[in-house]
């Protein structure tokens, strides 16, 4: 029993230490990811036929990673409107979003949610993954230990979205599933459809 007490107190002390160390480390992937989602409102314009009720609404599938940092965006103002964040488990909810965040996982719920907004003015975004990231308009990926964004530009433009040229200079553009073009080679596209934030 004494041994067990020692082990438990050791863990309690470890916790206190780890907590202090962690408090100093603010560079978390979740926060960076949330900040990038926040910036998307600045650099993307929604289609003109988007309902006026769509105002900075972020929706997440239940398995989307990093929800804590995203929920912290609630009521933060962007373009003079507050952000609202919620999780969605059905298609009715998904259609009322401006941004729909899905994990990279291909599961029935993600597939259903993605299909339900295929013709709606909803910006779909997949977290780091393999399969679903090829189906959404925007996706996250890792490169050189940094979080990056890729966009399916042709599909976004066809859907009525407009993308800031400032954002396009930074992201990887995927025009179809097999072809990847770096943004440096797409300057003319930026000039054609770009908007300045």
């Amino acid at each position, binding site marked *: *029993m004494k041994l*067990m007490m020692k*082990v*438990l*107190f050791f*863990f*309690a*002390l*470890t*916790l*206190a230490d780890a*907590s202090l160390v*962690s*408090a100093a*480390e*603010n*560079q*978390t*992937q*979740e*926060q*960076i990811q*949330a900040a*990038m989602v926040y*910036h998307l409102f600045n650099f993307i314009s929604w289609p003109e036929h988007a309902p006026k009720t769509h105002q900075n609404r972020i929706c997440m599938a*239940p*398995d989307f990673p*990093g929800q*804590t*940092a995203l*929920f*912290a*965006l609630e009521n933060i103002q962007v373009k003079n409107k507050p952000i609202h964040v919620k*999780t969605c488990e059905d298609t009715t909810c998904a259609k009322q979003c401006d941004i729909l965040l899905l994990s*990279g*996982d*291909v*599961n*029935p*719920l993600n*597939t*259903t949610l*993605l*299909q*339900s907004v295929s013709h709606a003015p909803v910006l779909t975004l997949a*977290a*780091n*993954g*393999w*399969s679903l990231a*090829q*189906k959404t308009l925007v996706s996250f990926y*890792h490169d050189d*230990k*940094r*979080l990056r964004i890729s966009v399916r530009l042709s599909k976004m433009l066809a859907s009525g979205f407009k993308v800031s040229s*400032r*954002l396009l200079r*930074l992201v990887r553009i995927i025009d179809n*599933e097999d072809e990847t073009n770096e943004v440096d080679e797409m300057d003319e596209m930026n000039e054609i459809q770009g908007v300045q934030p």
Partner: protein
Amino acid sequence: MHNTNLNTYTTRVLALLACLFGVFFSGVNALATENNNPYLKMSIEDLMQVPLSVASKKPQALSDTAAAVFVLTSDDIRRSGATSLPEVLRLVPGIDVERINGHEWAVSSRGFTSSFSNSLLVMIDGRSVFTPLFAGVYWDVQNIMLEDVDRIEVVRGSGGAVWGANAVNGVINIMTKSAADTQGGLIVTSVGDNKRENGAMAIRYGFKIGEHGSARFFAKGFSRQDDNPKANGPIGNWKDKRLGFRTDWETNTSTFMLDASAYHGEESTLMYAAAPYSATHTYQSAMSGSHLLGLWQRDGLSVQAYFDRTMRTRRTFAEHRDTMDLDLKYHAAIFHGHDLQWGVGYRTTSDTIVNTLALSLDPASRTDPLYSAFIQDELDLTNNLKLTLGLKVENNNYTGFESAPNIRLMWHINAKQQLWASVARAYRPPSRADTDLSQLFVNSPHFHLGLVANPHLETTDVSSYELGYRFQPQTNIALEITAYRNDYKRLTTNEELPFDTTTNFLAIKEANYLDAMSKGMELNVSWQIFEPWRLKTNYTWTRISARSTGGNDLTSARNTETGTPNHMWSIQSALTLTNQLTFDTQFYAIAESLAHKRQAYTRLDARLGWKPTDAIEFILAMQNVQNKRHHEYPDASGNFSEFGRSYYGQMHWAF
């Protein structure tokens, strides 16, 4: 003696509380240091240059997992019409769920179907719910509110490299919803036809605590018929009532969860008198228990502690067990291309058994500590090839040091296809009952037959080889096929000892004289035909061969080979008729089990849901719609209960 036990118990509770306070105050520290996300002030250009020095703990995408993983969502559970966890698990490919009577099930993965489920590790929110007494699961006390289950993750195959002992053929992890996701009130009430539900009611209420906290309380009770056709009429009811709460605290940097519940249940069991007598008796058993679980997570660090108390009183024995567990895990991408997890754990379980002439454990009281550590690294070999290396080591009180290594390889062929392979070793050390149990089966004046304890039983080893393929030809169709082979060494047999003529006692002793090989294939297809209609189908093929390596037990090898159904097929339809009406059906076809003299059977379950408003839903569910009375799995005496059509109505009211 009493004071010593009280002191020991008090010390343990204090130790656990000390740890939880440590966890809580570190959580409070996180609250105190919280501020806005600093990255919001950065430009998008700067954001993309921030190196990710510490990867956050994040769920792994199913398509990235080199294992036979299946996830049941809350929607799957809700629309299954099931009212207990084992019934829900029928939806999982490769999991064989066979009902024994009103309150017992045999649940297994990849063969070796047994009422003890002792090659399958089951957890609720990371808390192990298998009993160290026989390394199986008391399914009759796992009656959580199904409405609060967020998802059930089932890993078929060996999971020893992460989960350790008993994760031989699979791991089931039941995850409940955060209190933040169960705000407001919910009342669920059911009435049935006495075969399924006499009556059940559950009440839950969730609320916010300040800016960062939330909590919920629940109470649940039910009464169901405990049926057995060999009894002269109903033998009584299975009753269960429980209370519980959960609180969750979330900040930008950390989460803290505290979960607790307490329950009391009663059930009727039919006892067959030992030979040469033939009378049957019905007796009541009582079960009660409680648990307290704390979990704190920050970045990649996770600390979990729990205390669990189980008390069961049966006619033949009584068990009082206290278990304490402490686990620390860390998950970080320390090196480029590596995703590293490691952890350490300590568990101690103490029991006191009230022995009877029919059943006894020696010693009657025992404490078993368990120390463990694991490490797992995921390496990106190329852009589309990922290697996972894992190792878990444990030191237990029965066989000492044990290890479970694991190698997994995942190949992303393209965006639509993945191929994976795995080689693993898992193990099942002897349980408390395996080494300490003596049992008297026949007690006539001139002949006695019984089981005697064998404290020298050895660990059962399993070498597991798996190959899996996932394919999504279109966004609405997903297919997964898995093939496996498991080689088992030192399974247990029942060996007859020489007849003792002085006491007229024929003793049976467990020994490790059985090797076996199982192989099989699991196929599951999910097809969203159109938005309101989803079909899922599962097919499982299993074949087991076994050979005796000594001893005189001539039946264990044959029973092992023929005790598991070779074929299982199911198809599930989820149809959304209108915004208010849903209609779901599940059809199951299970092959025969020769060892148990059980015929093949089919069953069709159906559920109709009507949701006139967002707050209220009415459900009518029916099991065995075609009313084919059938047997599923025999009880400990080899007798079957018979299951026919049953139905219930249910109302959900959210406020």
